[in-house]
């Protein structure tokens, strides 16, 4: 498959690989995808008091396009406000890396990962909720990360 130079560069030299403490109050963790589908992306962001993403880390199980997509979004979200990061669209990622049509779902996953990481951070920031609130989300997991988000299923199904 002919991949773009940018994609190959990110796949060969991925940026910001690593792990932030998922329990830290200023860290948001997004875990999307599923092993059975062949791709799992974990994006983590550290957000300042002012709402600016100061650090981003990822780990991805997936093909070269999935690794490149996650590497790229770690670079893109860094320095942006949370609100601004949410404006990153999968089409931006697909265009930047020149993803072939069968790999577009990797960019969808990257967008989902940003949304999931921000949602996790917002949940933590909102703090303990009154009864019935979301203090202890039902999908909390022992490692402190949120359960994989159920986003994107409808968008992704056509390419599966």
């Amino acid at each position, binding site marked *: 498959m002919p991949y773009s130079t940018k994609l*190959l560069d990110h*796949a*060969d030299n*991925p940026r910001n*690989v690593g*792990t932030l403490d998922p329990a830290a109050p200023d860290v948001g963790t997004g*875990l*999307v*995808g*599923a*092993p*059975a*589908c*062949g*791709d*799992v*992306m*974990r994006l983590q962001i550290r957000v300042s008091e002012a709402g600016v993403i100061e650090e981003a880390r*990822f*780990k*991805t*199980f*997936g*093909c*070269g*396009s*999935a*690794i490149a997509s996650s590497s790229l979004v770690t670079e893109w979200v860094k320095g942006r406000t949370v609100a601004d990061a949410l404006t990153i669209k999968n089409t931006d990622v697909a265009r930047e890396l020149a993803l072939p049509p*069968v*790999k577009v779902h990797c960019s969808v996953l990257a967008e989902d990962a940003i949304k999931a990481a921000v949602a996790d951070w917002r949940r933590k920031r909102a703090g303990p909720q009154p009864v019935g609130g979301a203090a202890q989300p039902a*999908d909390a*997991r*022992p*490692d402190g990360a949120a*359960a*994989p*988000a*159920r*986003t*994107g*299923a409808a968008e*992704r199904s056509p*390419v*599966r």
Partner: protein
Amino acid sequence: MKLPIYMDCHATTPVDPRVLEAMLPYFTTEFGNAASKSHVFGWRAEEAVEAARAEVAALVGATAREIVWTSGATESDNLALKGVAHFARQQTGKAGHLVTCKTEHKAVLDALHALEREGHAVTFLEVERDGRLDPARVRAALRPDTVLVSVMHANNETGVVHPLAEIGRITRAAGVLLHCDAVQSAGRIPFDVEAMEVDLASLSAHKLYGPKGVGALYVRRKPRVRLIAEIDGGGHERGHRSGTLNVPGIVGFGKAAALAQAEREAEAPRLLALRERLRAGLLAGLDHVEVNGSLAHRLPGSLNVSFAYVEGEALMMAVKDVAVSSGSACTSASLEPSYVLRAMGVPDDRAHSSIRFGLGRFNTEEEVDHAVRLFVEKVKKLRDMSPLYEMAKAGIDPATVAWGEE
């Protein structure tokens, strides 16, 4: 050592220089049409084609008159399955029943799906977890209207070898024809149409160091197997397959078959030793490596392994210097993981992590050692960026996590 290293011999093999040498005159000076009966150009071409026919026949324990030249094994599979089913329907006036297994090559499965659309009934048998077809399943599947069973000898994704002789005994006793796609096995391990009681067998030149674009179908003469041709025309190949013969290709196939027959006994143990060196090296360098399919019943140069928590295509991209293939969905147009591994009960995540190694005549120990080094290094690198490996190390089995999708 020359890079990149080729280790994908299930897909194709390079033409042996001795094969190429035998072929070359048939492109230029000996260019005649083997069907030309009126001059020496045609006679010489025909002579070469018949010599090759005897060589290919000898490789599989057949007689020359039982070999029909085709464009490749896909055509051979189609001719065997459709040809037999159509002939049976012509004789009985009714659509018949055919039996196969779920891990067959697409050329067999899709030809059978086409027959299903025409009204024939097809049973697709399950395989065991080691990838082998239990002969008892074949016996149980037979019906009074069963005309043919099609079982490959060795699987193209795993190299797993089916108990073909046992299946042949069952079909022969039941008076049902047995077709075998022997593309991966012929020339690599003993494949004999008499010993295995096979009635039709598909063969391909380019899997045994011959050229692409030429194959053969073995069609038993005693007792005679009848089939209806798929291609109409000049009535070549005793009416089984019309079309001008690919003389250089056929000459190459003949030479390749003769070499395989002469050298197999020395080559197979060498390939087995290389395969075991590869397997031992990978297992010594990495944890969470699983071999897919039976190891005992496997082609000598074949290895299919899953490197857990690493995706196959990413691994192949990382190991640029070794040409292999993967059962990962990411390498297929359908975005589905390998149906062969799936049929064996291999979970999808493991199928996504699978790599198929196919060692052949021209691989060396040095190349195997280099491949081991590269795979160990790159699997470790990719695991360092795999959230699943991190979970596994933290004691969380990714298989127990409630993943969002599907």
